């Protein structure tokens, strides 16, 4: 259930209006009327543990104001983390000075006009009010779970609240506050490891102790890993592995990336590119998603059908890209000016109805992957990605987990991967380390390309 609609104390709507007033007044005094203000405030705390003890324990509170001005067809931005009148005035001065030094830009758009923005309520007091003592208590219990299995553990438990707002001189005032909790844990034996992670706006929506038990079980099951030959294998990717791998391609679902011909979708939109069973949307309104329902100019986000039955359909448009293409902006633009334009950031990949046990039981010979690591693009057009498996890689034989195996390096085209998926689990809010959290299923795919094996 979503929490109550809460205005964050870090940066209230009134604070935003006051700050904008300062900036607008400073601009007017210099004869500038077109002004946009991005405001951010965050409070983030993290309790980190290793070797079965808390070893790093931190909190930070910060704010930021970023002012953009438009002066005679020229625009520039200046930012400060001081929100007092003098600091804002200085930022306005800087932005005006920079803007005036630029050439006239005939393509520059006026500031966005106000539009209705849906309320995505993602603020939970349970997360916002979590104390250091409470984080330490949870961490101590999780350590106890792994320690009692005779293993060593490391991980992090974080709680945060953030507020973002955009105001401009045409009347835009978009405001969003949310909370986010994350718990990540690694369990280790002398020759194996296991990992689990969850994230949610509500820290009570997941159970850190269950994650600790899962990590410890994976570490136990992968003891004494066998080295097996690299090659093409049927692979079962758990949701975090899907997120971190598939999540690498969504920057290409951008109208600006297509214009720049740096997107692998060039010449491939509205053609069958992936398997029939692949459906992916960008949907900030999904109940398992996070983030504000507006973009870097205050434009409301709309749902995008990125891939329908294997066909790439829609891409994101900022206001500038939309104008060039003669379409409506989709609400995915980055703060202006920028060179990248826009990108979808609330990915929802449709899953299936198989359980992980079903998938394992129906796999004669394959590799089960908990997590992937250090994923980088080898080829930008075939979308070949390289990376490593990590923290729980298993050989599946005759429908059972046979043993842990030494970790593999892969070189895998995402286009090929998404043509080879034959089973999927229900989608869940997945949390990884290499891509944005997204709603994604675990899945099974044929012919996954493991090219090398490492020494552990």
């Amino acid at each position: 259930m979503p929490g109550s609609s809460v205005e964050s104390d870090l940066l209230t709507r009134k604070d935003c209006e006051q700050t904008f007033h300062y900036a607008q007044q400073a601009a007017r005094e210099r004869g500038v009327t077109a002004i946009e203000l991005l405001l951010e405030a965050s409070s983030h705390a993290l309790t980190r543990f290793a070797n079965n003890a808390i070893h790093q324990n931190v909190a930070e509170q910060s704010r930021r104001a970023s002012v953009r001005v438009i002066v005679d067809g020229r625009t520039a931005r200046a930012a400060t983390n001081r929100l007092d009148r003098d600091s804002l005035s200085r930022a306005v001065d800087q932005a005006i000075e920079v803007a005036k030094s630029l050439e006239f830009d005939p393509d520059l758009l006026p500031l966005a006009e106000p539009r209705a923005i849906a309320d995505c309520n993602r603020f939970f007091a349970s997360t916002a009010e979590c104390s250091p003592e409470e984080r330490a208590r949870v961490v101590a219990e999780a350590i106890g779970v792994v320690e009692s299995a005779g293993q060593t553990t490391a991980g992090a438990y974080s709680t945060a609240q953030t507020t973002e707002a955009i105001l401009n001189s045409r009347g835009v005032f978009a405001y969003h506050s949310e909370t986010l909790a994350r718990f990540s844990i690694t369990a280790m034996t002398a020759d194996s490891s296991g990992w689990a992670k969850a994230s949610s706006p509500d820290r009570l929506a997941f159970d850190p102790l269950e994650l600790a038990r899962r990590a410890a079980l994976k570490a136990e099951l992968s003891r004494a890993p066998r080295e097996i030959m690299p090659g093409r294998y049927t692979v079962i990717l758990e949701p975090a592995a899907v997120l971190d791998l598939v999540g690498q391609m969504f920057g290409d679902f951008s109208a600006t990336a297509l214009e720049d011909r740096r997107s692998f979708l060039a010449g491939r939109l509205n053609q069958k590119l992936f398997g029939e069973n692949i459906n992916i949307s960008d949907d900030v309104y999904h109940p398992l998603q996070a983030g504000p329902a507006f973009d870097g100019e205050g434009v409301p986000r709309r749902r995008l059908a990125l891939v329908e039955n294997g066909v790439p359909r829609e891409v994101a448009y900022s206001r500038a890209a939309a104008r060039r293409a003669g379409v409506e902006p989709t609400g995915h633009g980055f703060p202006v000016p920028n060179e990248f334009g826009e990108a979808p950031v609330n990915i929802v990949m449709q899953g299936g109805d198989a359980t992980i046990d079903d998938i394992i039981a129906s796999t004669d010979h394959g590799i089960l992957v908990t997590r992937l690591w250090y994923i980088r693009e080898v080829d930008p057009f075939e979308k070949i990605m390289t990376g490593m498996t990590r923290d729980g890689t298993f050989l599946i034989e005759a429908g059972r987990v046979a043993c842990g195996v030494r970790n593999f390096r892969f070189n895998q085209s995402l286009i090929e991967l998404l043509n080879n998926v034959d089973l999927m689990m229900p989608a869940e809010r997945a949390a990884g380390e290499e891509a944005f959290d997204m709603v994604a299923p675990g899945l099974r795919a044929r012919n996954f390309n493991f090219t090398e094996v490492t020494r552990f």
Partner: protein
Amino acid sequence: MRDLAGRALDRALRNGVAYADVRVIESRERHLSTKNGKIGHISANESAGVGIRVIAAGCWGFAATDDLTSEGLERAAALAIAIARSGAAAKKADVQLAPENAYQITWSSPTVVDPFAISIDQQIGLLLQVDAELRRNPGVTLSEASMDFVRSRQVFASSLGSLIDQTRTTSGCGFCAYAYQDDAIQKRSYPNSFGGQFQLKGYELVQELDLPGNAARIAEQAVALHSADQCPEGEFHLILDSSQLGLQIHESIGHPIELDRVLGSEANYAGTSFLTLDKLNRLRYGSELVNVVCDARLEHGPGLGTFAFDDEGVPAQCTPIIQDGQFVGYMTSRETAAAIGQPRSNGTMRADGWARIPLIRMTNVSLLPGRQTLDEVFDVDHAIYMETNRSWSIDDKRYNFQFGCEIAWEIRNGRRVRMLKNPTYSGITTNFWNACDAIANRDHWTLWGVPNCGKGQPEQVIGTGHGASPARFRNIRIGAGYAG
């Protein structure tokens, strides 16, 4: 700022606090870019804040705030202490620190030309000049150029009595040309990929690199790659340019020698290290030609890892890491040095701004120059020569790596005979460094800057330095990225 640091330290030093340090930082940044003849982004940023770190109840606590009022400092100090005390719920032993002296010093990195004194229109004008030169080649489909300047003043004060006032100015610049053709994308960058070259210098760095003078050549190569042969797969001798070798050092030497990784502090995120304590002074890391140091001193050069004191008040030092191929040293902090019985930290603790705690980070981890001329390095019957990183990946213990480069050439009898596209190479760290059989001399040595090294939770991004000259490696696996 000094007064502010003193007041913050006073508030942190309460009953039960065994140690405290504070870092007050004011920073100024300017970031400029162009794309296809237009402004990409242009921004000027300022930031100020304080981070307070304490040991109480035998545990670390840290709180950071941008509220620099007395009340803000009071709240942050109290929170740091409360956080430290909460850690006692899961404590195995009290934090112990290796001893360190107290210092009072003011230091600024040398700059010849203040980058903030150069007008933005002059800087943008140069980028647009480069951009126009790139697009003069009709095969270039996307051109990007950028400059980045940061000046950061930090006042460090600790309960040991240190008061260290440091100002560092860094500059970076570079450009790249993309060519899209026949369902493939090729890219060339100068002087390095991912933003170019970064050093502890002023605007003189931009002037030295002659961006416009290199644009036509880079554009031509980006387009020519489409006509080049695919890099073959197999085992070949490999020659790397110094920028790619800098990243190879970063990933396969710099990260595994971080003692906090070795001791397990990063196990959940960045990973651990194959360099377990039993390997110190016992492991043959590389061939006898391989000598590596971790050197934060100005004498080493104007690197992104050059400073006078690290972020826990330890002076910059030069630490031997690999001597004649033998593994001889880690990068340490006051806490990790004490943990392995070393008398003193070698000064590698650095934080990404005022809001984050210092962690062990690479300073300038450099491969010392060899004795060969460049011709001698290339004097081989058959090899593949690769330039400029395109992709990089390594496992979480830093054994297995794979790198891709933007461009390669096949070398026959010491001469380039054909251009190759999509080169990749891979291997196991110690096998790779033991295969090194030639390193070019100091005439070809460059101290490269890696501006985007990530580590820690919450993640911290920091700049590191890596000196290298071109080097040769025997029988390396090439082409795995496109195999299968």
